[in-house]
């Protein structure tokens, strides 16, 4: 695909003859080359997971996060350039708090996702800025109805509502795995999903890549319906169980 842009890929304000904006597509490449991240709407909440590459053994574990809280009942996991993503997270946070200040009501998730889509799209319209090189997976739980929802906002500004999705390097494999999981367990709870999510990330992790740290967070009854990192013991237990099952599967092969 590289090199077919000819002269039409130099600026985000140029269309190619076949109607594509190459710069926005190249932004998508930045997302595709990053570590896998996925999110699932379970029966009682949302679970986020991210494969965080460790660039050095000296890195303090638990830092350089890829999953961010947006408001009490919403979180966002990022695929792509995390530095770009900080702008989006900051914007999501201020949209949510300003909405609450204006209307005394928690911002509905579709509205928040739409605003973020508008925000990201705005950066694809002008010559002086570049598109964001990241995709945001925004997961929310409604305050009253406790209904979970998940949105995927891409660098071109499109917003999709998903039951579950994955982005990044291993997204295809991860999506297949998620579909299998959801087909087998339509009434999946967040507690049950922990181990399955850890298993998926470990499975799609490419051995040729660097070592990684698994980052999981959730919004579910166990966290009092607030966005929180999964407690360390539960995460470690889920990872250990996931690794055990994967090794067992590999032995079977």
């Amino acid at each position: 695909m590289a090199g077919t842009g000819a002269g039409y890929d130099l600026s985000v304000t140029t269309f190619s003859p076949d109607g594509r904006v190459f710069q926005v597509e190249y932004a998508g490449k930045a997302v595709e080359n990053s570590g896998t991240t996925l999110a699932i709407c379970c029966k009682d909440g949302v679970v986020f997971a991210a494969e965080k590459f460790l660039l050095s053994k000296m890195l303090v574990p638990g830092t350089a996060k890829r999953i961010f809280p947006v408001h009490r009942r919403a979180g966002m996991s990022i695929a792509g350039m995390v530095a770009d993503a900080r702008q989006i997270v900051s914007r999501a946070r201020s949209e949510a708090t300003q909405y609450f200040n204006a209307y005394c009501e928690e911002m509905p998730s579709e509205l928040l996702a739409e605003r973020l889509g508008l925000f990201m799209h705005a950066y694809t319209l002008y010559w002086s800025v570049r598109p964001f090189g990241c995709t945001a997976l925004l997961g929310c739980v409604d305050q009253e109805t406790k209904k979970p929802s998940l949105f995927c906002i891409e660098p071109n500004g499109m917003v999709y509502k998903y039951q579950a999705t994955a982005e990044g390097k291993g997204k295809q494999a991860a999506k297949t795995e998620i579909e299998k999981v959801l087909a087998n367990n339509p009434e999946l709870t967040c507690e049950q999903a922990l181990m399955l999510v850890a298993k998926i990330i470990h499975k799609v992790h490419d051995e040729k890549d660097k070592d990684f740290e698994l980052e999981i967070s959730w919004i579910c009854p166990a966290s009092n319906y607030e966005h929180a990192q999964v407690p360390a013991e539960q995460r470690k237990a889920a990872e250990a169980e996931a690794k055990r099952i994967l090794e067992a599967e590999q032995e079977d092969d």
Partner: protein
Amino acid sequence: MVEVEEPQDYLDVFQSQRGGFSFENCKRNAYLAAQANIKPPTAMKSGTTICGIQLKDAVILAADTRATEGPMVADKNCEKLHYISKNVFCAGAGTAADLQHTCEMMESQMELLRMATGTEPRVCTVVRRLSSMLFKYQGYIGCALVLGGVDVTGPHLYQIYPHGSTDKLPFTTMGSGSLAAMAIMEAEYNENLSIEDGKKLVAKAIRAGIFNDLGSGGNVDVCVITKETGGAILRNYEKPNERKFKAQHAAFPKGTTPILKEEIMKLVSVEEDVVMRD
């Protein structure tokens, strides 16, 4: 004598064009009042009795219908219950124009919000929008409101003062007749009233205002808001001041007044020719 104003600095001009309220006539009005005893026309106020109660699954608002302009009754049957959304209504005391426009603005804002979010607007949202706006204008918008409605979180009743402060209460009265109405409320309110008893209570409170306060009078309007039916205004729920009869005058027969002289003057000459058009 009259002061000559010096040419203004561009900063003063800029300041004066910033927008918001312009107070440039205050100096002129003070001069006129002091020197020529000319007072500006006062806004049409509604000395009023409004009240509201919150029941287990409904909110009932009520208001009188007299609009006063100084010592005169400007409107014997005006509407003081305003629609904000299907499930939120408010009763207003204060400056009639401010109330009308503020409530219309809230109505349109809530409709836009309803379309954007796909959910019914909440009472707390309307309260927040109103108090933010009234505080922004520092009390110059003369709206004192009793706001009530039923949303997903249940029935709620609030009162909002012109400066922007809000109170959440189980029963409330406002306006010049609020003391008379509050006496009735304090004596007879309890949260287990049925809707019918609730309507009778608010009507009784408004009647106390109508008969004991000069600024309130006319009829009683009631608004009942429930979860199932939304809100319905019962216009003129009670009419305690109906005129019993109108003075009847039979037409005086011709010749009652004696005619002393009759003179008919032709002021206009009328030509009877009919002209055909071609």
